[in-house]
């Protein structure tokens, strides 16, 4: 695996992950002790350079989503190190980690669940601004929200509507606007299009790519659809049972998969004959 040789801190890298492990203890009841451990992520290492898209493919249960969640502390890290621009952020206290949340953002899979049904689009997007740009006044904030919505292809009048009034694709755009609000440098895209219809999927993928070009974003693109992931990514990692089984640039993976699992995966994908 090519990351093994890269153990020194590389100042050019945006994110560097080393031997990341996320283990969930299975525990039930008040008195019972830890029964067993699920190794959701088991020694994963990778790095992301600025402006790069790293794809992460795997079947359900392979731990790919947990990797993304662990990066922004939505999942507890058992061991390993995470460097953000050469700084070790693994054990940063939450208060300091908060400023990092401005730089790493996440887009979620479920366009229906990821938006609070009781908040307007304006407040969903504005929320991020309130936290990270408290210096903005109400008017500026509104202007910024309108700008963001515009950026993701929504109309300014949508600010006062509620999530249930939008289609899946539009909701995913809202989710993207929310992530963009804080000017992040890395966005973790957790299966952002797998719940969408093909036609909408294409729009969102295009939008993500446009944004990357405009703003120089980096993506960690997580997905199970090989076609979509390879379309988005510069490099790809294949994950199975918590481990990276193969990593490399798109072409090499598709054209000459090394690991049997990758081969099996590729063979299984139906193609237009």
């Amino acid at each position: 695996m090519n990351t093994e040789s890269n153990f020194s801190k590389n100042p050019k890298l945006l994110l560097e992950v080393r031997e990341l492990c996320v283990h969930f203890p299975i525990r039930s009841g008040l008195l019972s002790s830890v029964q067993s451990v699920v190794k959701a992520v088991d020694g994963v290492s990778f790095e992301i350079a600025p402006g790069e898209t790293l794809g992460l493919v795997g079947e359900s249960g392979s731990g790919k989503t947990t990797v993304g969640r662990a990066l922004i502390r939505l999942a507890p890290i058992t061991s390993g190190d995470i460097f953000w621009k050469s700084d070790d952020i693994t054990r940063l206290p939450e208060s300091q980690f908060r400023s990092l949340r401005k730089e790493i953002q996440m887009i979620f899979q479920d366009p229906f669940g990821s938006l609070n049904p009781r908040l307007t689009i304006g407040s969903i997007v504005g929320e991020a601004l309130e936290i990270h740009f408290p210096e903005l006044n109400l008017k500026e904030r509104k202007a910024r929200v309108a700008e963001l919505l515009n950026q993701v292809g929504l109309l300014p009048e949508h600010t006062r509507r509620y999530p249930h009034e939008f289609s899946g694709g539009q909701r995913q755009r809202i989710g993207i606007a929310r992530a963009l609000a804080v000017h992040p440098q890395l966005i973790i895209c957790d299966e952002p299009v797998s719940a969408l219809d093909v036609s909408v999927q294409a729009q969102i993928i295009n939008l993500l790519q446009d944004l990357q070009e405009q703003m120089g974003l980096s993506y960690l693109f997580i997905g199970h659809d090989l076609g979509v992931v390879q379309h988005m990514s510069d490099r790809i990692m294949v994950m199975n049972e918590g481990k990276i089984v193969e990593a490399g640039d798109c072409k090499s993976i598709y054209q000459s998969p090394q690991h049997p699992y990758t081969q099996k995966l590729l063979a299984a994908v139906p193609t237009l004959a």
Partner: protein
Amino acid sequence: MNFPLWIQNLAIFLLAASMGSAFWFVARSPRWQRATRRFRNDKVGLLSACVISVYLFIGLLDSVQIPAGPHRDRTALDWMFHGIKRERTYSAPLASTSYSATRPQPLEGRHVLGTDVLGKDVLLQTLKACRTALIIGGLTSMIYIPLGTLFGVLAGYYRRWVDDVIQYIYSTLATIPSILLLIAIIMALGKGLPQISIALGVTAWVGLCRLIRGETMRQSQRAYVEAARALGQSHRQIICRHILPNVMHLVIINFILGFSGFVMTESILSYLGVGVPVGTPSWGQMIDSARMELAREPAVWWNLGASACALFFLVLALNLLGDALRRAFDPRGSSVSVSR
């Protein structure tokens, strides 16, 4: 309560106004518009809401104080009934003599629903009992709703030891059969409306807490909570902005259904001799007295009739309203507007 009249009335008015505006706000708020729209199509629910408003209005009337001579106040409801005289003892509905097979005496006036043992107009007593029921329900709700919601959200959101501690407290309380716990607390605290409310509150928060805990767990697993975390919102903000609004509908339904439960429980407590204090009109006590009255020959049925009906319609309306609200808030969204 020795506050000047105007302060009491102002307080009542403010309470009513805030309730009304809260209701108006909820009905108008686009956050609830889907539920509101569904509710508006629900005839049973609307009818129940109307019935409940009538009860609320009567309770309100009985809370507004009107000065009546030196050192003497009475409520607006009393004032409306001031033409109706006090009798010596029982009289049948619309009878012209007192209720006695052997010594009927002429009455001071006519009583639509007759009079009770102390000669009080049963209709007035029944109406006055609305206020007692509303106070018990309202006071209890003021105790148990904040308690149950807060603990439920905390347990469901923070999990781990917070959850363990809260779960322990409520499992212990839930373990004691609620009616016995109620009685034990009232026996310990003594009789009185606040005491009953405290006892009811202590027993009622458990159910709400369990419900809210479960829903909070469900909600906090949903991606929007994660998104908020990813944005760097503090736990307090997440609870206030995201969790609470999304469990509020359960609180409202629980409040409505709980209310009817309290009104029913009061009647059982009165039967067990730990009900509201002497001199406080209540349906439970009227029903309880009716046991002896029905055995009279001929039976005194109007006291039971009036109180049981008044209780029945309030509880029925509350239950149906609770059902209607549950339908309105149901995320699955029923396609047909009858039942479910």
